[in-house]
Every structure is written in C-alpha cells, then in structure tokens.
C-alpha cells in the first residue's frame, strides 16, 4: 500500500463558525493508495476526538493507525480499490495548525489564543483540502464518534460532494451526560498547576497530570462495564509490572498506563478545544430542525451503533435514521454487538467489516 504524508498550507485562511478567522493554516494529511483516473474512488476518513491523520498502516514511529483494523489492502475500506485520505483536524496536535503551533502572524505559540473550532469548521477545512486534491466527489466519507458527526455534517454541508456517508457510534448532538463528563476532564486539566491558563508551552512546562486524569476518565467512558469486567475483573496487578506503588488492581494499572502515555503526546489546549467542539455540536436543536437539515442530503447514509456503547448509545443513531426516512433520504441503520463499548467502532468484527464493505461497494 502506497502511503504519502504531507503538510498542506492554506494561505487563504479560513473563517470560523464563531466569527473569528485564521489567516492561514496547515493540515497534515495521510493518503493511502492512489486516486484513479476519473477520481471516483476517493474515501475521506474523519478522526475522533483524540485521533489524527494516521489512520492505517505503521508509521515511521512504529505506531499502528487508529483504523488499521478496517482500512488497508483487502480490508473493509479496501486500499486495493480506493484512495483513502485522512487529515489531522484543525486545533489538533499531530501536525495540523492547533494551539501548540506557531501563529504565523506573530511568530508566537498560539496557546490559549487558538480560536475555538467546530465540527462545521473541520468539514469546511476538509472541503478546502478536497478542492486542493482536485477531488469533486467523495465515494465515501466516514468516521466514528466525533468523526461520525463530521461525516454527517459533510453530507449536509456539501451534498454534491458525498456519495455515501458512514456515521458510526455517533449522534446528531452530544448528550447532557457527554458534556458533563467532558467538563470533569477539562476541569482536571485547567486545575493542573502547570496549565497556566493555557500558556504552559511558552513557560516550558506541561500540565501532564491534568491531561492524564482527563484521559483516565475518558477511558472509563469508552469501555462498557461488561468489557471492563472481562478484561480486568478484580484481578490484582503483578508486583513487577506495576506502573507505581499506589496501584493495586489491574484496571488501575491500565488507566494509569493509558493516561500517562497519552499525557506525553497530547496537548492540553487541544484537549479542551476538541472536547468543546464535540459538546457544542448540535446538528439540529429539535426533531423538526433535524429533519430540515437532513433535507439537503443526497448521499446514502449508513448509520451504525453498538449495543455496548453507553456514551453514544445506538438509539441516537436511530433517531438520525428515522428523521432521514421522513425526508426520503436513503439511509440504513444497523446496530451491532461490539464488546468494547464506545470504542467498538475502532475494532473489526466480521459483521462490522462486512456491513461497511458491502455498503461501500454496492
């Protein structure tokens, strides 16, 4: 599989949903396989909150892409047939312009001055990328969780650019509970003494403890109770593989390990921006508005939910489909087993894989 990673500069800048403007910005993009002659085999993947442009294969650091189980040669999203594109979203911290990058107008790190971006802004910036790549229609735009929100928004914002859309483990808006959980995570970051109102980079420090705590909470919400029971139960951690002396149970060790690792790589301001974008997304205020927004869609929708997902339960996906049926949109809704709770959208099961493959290839 041919992999190409590049940084694309958009000197024209972008006007954001909240009224502010980025005078210029960069997106880091990973592209797999090749665009065919009539440019009809392009697939856009939208990443979830902590994902990035690295969706498939192993990168130079040896890291496996976030959707590698489903994207690659012969896989559900088959790079033998399709040209696949994924970019790090604006406001992220993996190479696209975000709070940890330099503001080209001032030469200073953005820090807390990076504007609050939204799902709509991401879709608009991805549309600019689409134009830059010379693609006039995506065969399939898909993502899970926050990525699913982008796929849905794509089909509404740019109906002529999307043939099929995959909205997985997502909803038309975040629930009150989603917002509440995200606020606890943000509070952990903001109260880290090294956060310094978001200006930690210029002071040479990092609010690692805050990010770690936020991520530990996040991981609890991504898993289902059953999955946690099965994986960890009440087992104690071996003395020689304990991450710290304070750890007793395996589940504690797991959360400590995941949180620690994440805190080394993720930017605190990005965490706040990304979760805020998720919370703020409200595709439509009520059922009527939902139907009106869906009216423009020309794409066929595939909505997938997972029984074990309590963060974005499958019923929220069904709400979208019922509204779509009312507006005569071709749309399918499937709910699958998936044991990993909200994270199920990342993992291959035979049914999940087949469902996506047949939908794309029909």
């Amino acid at each position: 599989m041919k992999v190409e990673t590049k940084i694309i500069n958009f000197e024209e800048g972008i006007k954001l949903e909240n009224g502010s403007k980025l005078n210029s910005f960069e997106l880091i993009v990973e592209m797999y396989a090749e665009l065919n002659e009539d440019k009809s085999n392009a697939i856009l993947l939208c990443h979830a909150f902590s994902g990035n442009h690295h969706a498939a294969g192993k990168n130079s650091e040896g890291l496996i892409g976030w959707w590698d189980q489903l994207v690659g040669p012969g896989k559900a999203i088959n790079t033998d047939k399709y040209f696949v594109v994924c970019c790090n979203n604006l406001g992220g911290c993996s190479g696209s312009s975000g709070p940890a990058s330099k503001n080209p107008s001032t030469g200073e790190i953005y820090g807390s001055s990076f504007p609050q971006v939204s799902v709509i802004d991401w879709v608009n910036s991805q549309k600019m990328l689409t134009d830059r790549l010379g693609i006039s229609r995506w065969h399939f735009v898909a993502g899970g969780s926050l990525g699913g929100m982008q796929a849905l928004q794509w089909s509404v914002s740019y109906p002529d650019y999307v043939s099929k859309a995959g909205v997985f483990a997502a909803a038309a808006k975040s629930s009150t509970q989603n917002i509440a959980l995200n606020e606890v995570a943000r509070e952990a970051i903001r109260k880290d003494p090294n956060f310094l109102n978001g200006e930690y980079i210029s002071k040479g420090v990092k609010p690692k403890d805050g990010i770690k705590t936020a991520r530990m909470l996040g991981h609890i919400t991504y898993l289902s109770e059953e999955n946690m029971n099965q994986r960890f139960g009440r087992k104690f951690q071996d003395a020689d593989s304990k991450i710290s002396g304070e750890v007793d149970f395996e589940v504690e060790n797991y959360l400590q390990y995941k949180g620690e690792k994440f805190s080394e790589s993720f930017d605190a301001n990005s965490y706040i921006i990304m979760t805020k974008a998720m919370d703020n997304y409200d595709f439509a205020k009520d059922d009527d508005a939902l139907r009106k927004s869906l009216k423009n869609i020309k794409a066929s929708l595939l909505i997938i939910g997972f029984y074990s997902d309590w963060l974005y339960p499958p019923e929220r996906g069904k709400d979208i489909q019922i509204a779509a049926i009312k507006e005569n949109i071709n749309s399918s809704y499937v709910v699958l087993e998936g044991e990993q709770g909200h994270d199920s959208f990342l993992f291959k099961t035979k049914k999940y894989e087949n469902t996506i493959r047949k939908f794309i290839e029909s």
Partner: protein
Amino acid sequence: MAIEISRIIENWVPNNSKVIDFGCGDGSLLFKLKKDKNVLGYGVEINDEKIISCLEKGVSVVKQDIDMGLDEFESLNFDISIMARSIQCLKEPSLALNKMLNLSKECVVTLPNLGYWRCRINLAMGRMPVTPDLPSSWHETENIHLCTINDFEKLCDDESITIKQKVFLNPNGKEGIMSSMNPNFYATEGVYLLEKK
C-alpha cells in the same frame, strides 16, 4: 420469495412510491421494486446476514425486531407497507395490521393457509401440519399465529379493513383454478392488498 408473489406485489405497488417492507429478508423484493418501479424503499430486518445482503444490493434497511412494535415508523409518509409471510410470526398480528394501515395508505400482507387440505389431513391424522409450505415441526416453527384464509378475512372484517385485492396461490406458487375457486381448501398462500375502511 417466490417469483409469482413478487410479481403480484409489484403490480400493486405504484410507480415512484415510498415503500416499507417489514421482514424484508435479503432485500430482493425492494431491489426489484426499485429497479422496475423506481420506488423509494426501506426494509426492516433483524437478521444481520440478511441486512448485509440488503446493503450489498444498495437497499436501505433498518435493523429492528418487528415484534418490538412499529410505532417509530408512523408519520414517515409511506404510500405502501409490505409484510410478506411474517404476520403469522408476530405476537400481536392484528395490532401490527392496524399499525401498518396507520403508517401507510395501503398494505400488502401474504400469509400461509392452515386450511389447505394437506394441513387438514395432517390434523385429521392427529398431527400438527408439516407440509412443503410449512416445513417446520410444531416446536421449531416461528409461526405462532397460523390461521386459515377464512380466519384472516374475518379478522379484516372485524377490524374494518377493506380487502382491495387478493390472490391465492397453489403449492406450485401459481394462481391455480382450484385455489381461486375454493382458496380456504386448496390455496397454500393468500396475498392481500388492504386498506382502512
């Protein structure tokens, strides 16, 4: 689904209509209706493998157990709803029938006839009917509400449902002379187009 049944249903479904097929199976009927009649079709199915077959055909499908109710499909402006060989499997067939006529102007129902003469012989011999058309034994069958043609038509009458069209099929899946003359005895299957009085 037998070719004859899908041909009959196709004749009743208007061009460009909005159709919902409860228990749509692998989506063959909706696929054909889309191709031949340009309908906007949605299938409802619970079996994952069959759902995948629908998606493969480009047929829109909703994963749902139709026994859990049809309420959410109300007010979605369907012209016609279809329930082929499924109504006898439901816990509340008459409720489902009324729901279908609430959510669409017309509905198509097909059902196996327990009054078919071979079933009667089975019962006369003291056994539950097992015929090529009803192949499962009593403890394996999904058909928990089997009825005769006469029973079904009486239900329609009791529920103020008009039978707009009906066709009766013989064991070969064809409209036979005998099955049309005395369907309650000779037909293996009844195919109905219904509307609310």
